[in-house]
């Protein structure tokens, strides 16, 4: 079962950061809409099940 930590978009939150928690990561994706592109970060966990995520891209 793939997990977030194996995904290209997963960036672990460094230990010295305020929002660090064990396993916490940023899911960072480049997104586009009719007004242009932007980079979006949402909170995720390294062991989160990536099976249902349509954006999963293996590293």
């Amino acid at each position: 079962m793939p997990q977030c930590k194996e995904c290209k978009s997963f960036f672990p939150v460094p230990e010295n950061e305020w929002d660090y928690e064990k396993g916490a990561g940023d899911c960072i994706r480049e997104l586009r809409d009719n007004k242009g592109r932007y980079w979006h970060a949402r909170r995720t966990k390294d062991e989160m099940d990536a099976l249902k995520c349509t954006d999963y891209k293996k590293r």
Partner: protein
Amino acid sequence: MASAAVLEEISRDLKIDRKGQPLGKVMWEKKIKEGPGSTPRTKHLYKRCRWAHTAGGEYVREDIKISLERARLYTEGHKANAGELPIIIRAKCLEHYLKNCSIYIQDEELIVGSHNEYPDKLELFPEGGAKNMMDYLEDDTVTPPELYDEGVKMVEYWKQWSLSSRCERYFDPESLEKLSTGVIGEPPVWAHFYTSACPPYQSVLEDGLEKRIKWCEDNIKNARDKIKTFPWRGEENFPLFEKIDAWEAMNISARAVIGWARKYSRLARIIAENFDLSDSVGGAGQRKKELLEIADICARVPAEPARGLKDAMQSKWFCFVVAQNIERYCSGYSQLEDNLLWPYYKASVIDKTAQPMSREEAVELIECERLKVCERTVTKGRWMRIIHPGINDLHILSLGGLDENGNDMCTDLTDVILEAALNIHTNEPSIAFKYSPKCNEKTRRLVYECISQGFGFPSIKNYEKNFKHSMEYHGWPPEVAARWALVLCMAPGATGRRSTQHSRNEGGSGIVGPAVGTMALSDGFDAWFSNKQCGAHTGDASKFTWEDLLKAVEEQIKHNSQLMFMNKEITSYAENKWLESPFLAMMDDWNVEEGVGAFHRYNKPYTNTWADYYPGPVGVVDDLAAIKYWVFDKKKYTMAQLLEALKANWQGYEEMRQEFLSAPKFGNDDDYVDKIANWFFNVSCDVWAAHKMVGWEKGATIVPQSVSAFVTLGSMIGAEPFGRRHGEPTHDGGCSPYMGLDKKGPTAVLKSVSKLPNERIKGIQLNQRLPVGLMRESEKGFDVWSAYMKTWHDLNCDHVQFNVVRTEDMRSAQKEPEKWEHLIVRIAGYSARFISLSKMAQDAVIARTEQELG
């Protein structure tokens, strides 16, 4: 006489080759040809700007949809901490949100930070109450169906905790019903969740949050030491418990804001190091450099003091996003921007000692800020959205003025901000210019050029008049009274490190001007919109003498204003007790010193208790003049006949209506009506002063203005004796003559305005329309306008703002809106994109009398 050297300098700064033509004309043509923006970046950002304005209460762009991220995280935060003290709950909700919220950075941005899950998303505030939440949830144009059930569950959860439930308990059912109609005044904050705040940015820019956290920690330590000191002193120690809680809440919030800003730092670095940036406007290398610099800035501010202009702009923006978009939704973009940012501009652009940059780069940064404001999505209640068409929100910053010793406070940064506005051509944020003849010519010329481009801003406020008023009526010391900035559209508020201003609770809110007249004629019953007893019982108007009529009007003013002030302070009480904003408190030196929340108002240093008439009340003046003229002086009609005609909305009484329309009208320098205006405004000032809100024994001051309620509330205001029919626009501004009824020219308007008790009035809005041919296309425009401004200033008028737009252009824009996206008009205290206005609002602007100057 205008100086040629000044004109040349401005043309050079703006990179305009005039070729002997008027500057305004060349700028206009350039904009049509090349589009707004002084650099490839801002041209790109303008083209893809995510405008988020509303028209008719609806969001104009279909892409704007709600998100429940904030509401969800705040609900989780509240559930997890429900047993805590209210101010700690507020801090913990903010902390939970900032830790877990999504963030994003858009291409080409130089200033980063947003309050929503994705661009174009609206975030909701369930802690306000059910009414506004349900209005959004049930609107399927903005709420995707999959969010509805979750949203409704949140509404259920918050019912017992919301601001509505905290406030409603203090009202009797009758008052509650009257307030809720919106017929006699603005509905309560807890119904539409509309409020505003002016954060004291200066303290964060100068100190950085880390220093302020240490300050709170020291305060907590000192308080703990104090309570351990022998012998026990209950009187002194008791209040310390509440203060300790407040300081702890401030620190939870401030630490969370630093952490959240650093999430942006992390994101910027990850983008720079991991993503393909090759199609950036300046190329991949340049964008990577910019993103790494953004990463560096966001790691340092707002934790640390700002060093240069880039730090200051970013730190200010972060504070704005949190204090006015996340912790609470608060309208406004209040600041004395040139004064606030001057030390950082000087360090970066002039001295080049910190974050060195060119003047052109500073202009670009301000253009980026303006575009960022244009993308701000807000979720105020429908009543407020309806009266604010064509904008996202009331975003108004202030510039200029003099210091307390009479020295010009305009700097090169003032000019840079005005130049950026000229370049980027956005309607938001609007600008208010603190006008004094002592302000230097270059700045005044730039103000004029913005007006001549048709922006409708800067709106002009009389610096000296407002300096004096702030000292005399609010008791501010000269150095504070000199540095006022508009809180929202029209009312000056203090700026500086201990000066948080609020509206709706302390200042702001308002009663409907024309309603005090129409209610006096109907014994307080509203037969036009709500079918309810909204005003006071003042008797059968068909039997009124002239004196009875004046007395009835006065009673209606008292009744309606009583409800408003009662509502304001109930809200203020509940906000302080249950819905504090600890981060906003953390920004203010006084709140930190005293250990009190942002809504605490006892012993506040610079109180500012004021409230509006909006729409403005000049209709009442014209009504009274028409009645006096035809009923009591000429005796051609009886009161009973007039009431019949009004009841019929003048249908079948056209001849009579024309006669009432021909009675003396305000704005024509006619003492017959101007004396009535003077009486009306003096009575209103007396009534306002009699209402003594917390913290200020001299009583409240008055601000007559209109927002765009003069159009949108036309359906709520019955037919008026001066000749207006139900549904038609009322008088705009606070003292503007009725459209088309000022027939004696601009000086006569100013003379009528000058006969009002201006020294007692905190702000009163005057809208004027000037010809494009003179203002934009003539070399003598600046001189003629300057002469007009001299008369205005000599007459001690408070305010004036101008529309400079051709009727044919507005008509063309009505027919082919897609070709006129850039067309901006002044509506009231703000400027709007013309194509986003309702047809009725557009027609009202077209119908304003175009004054001939010179």
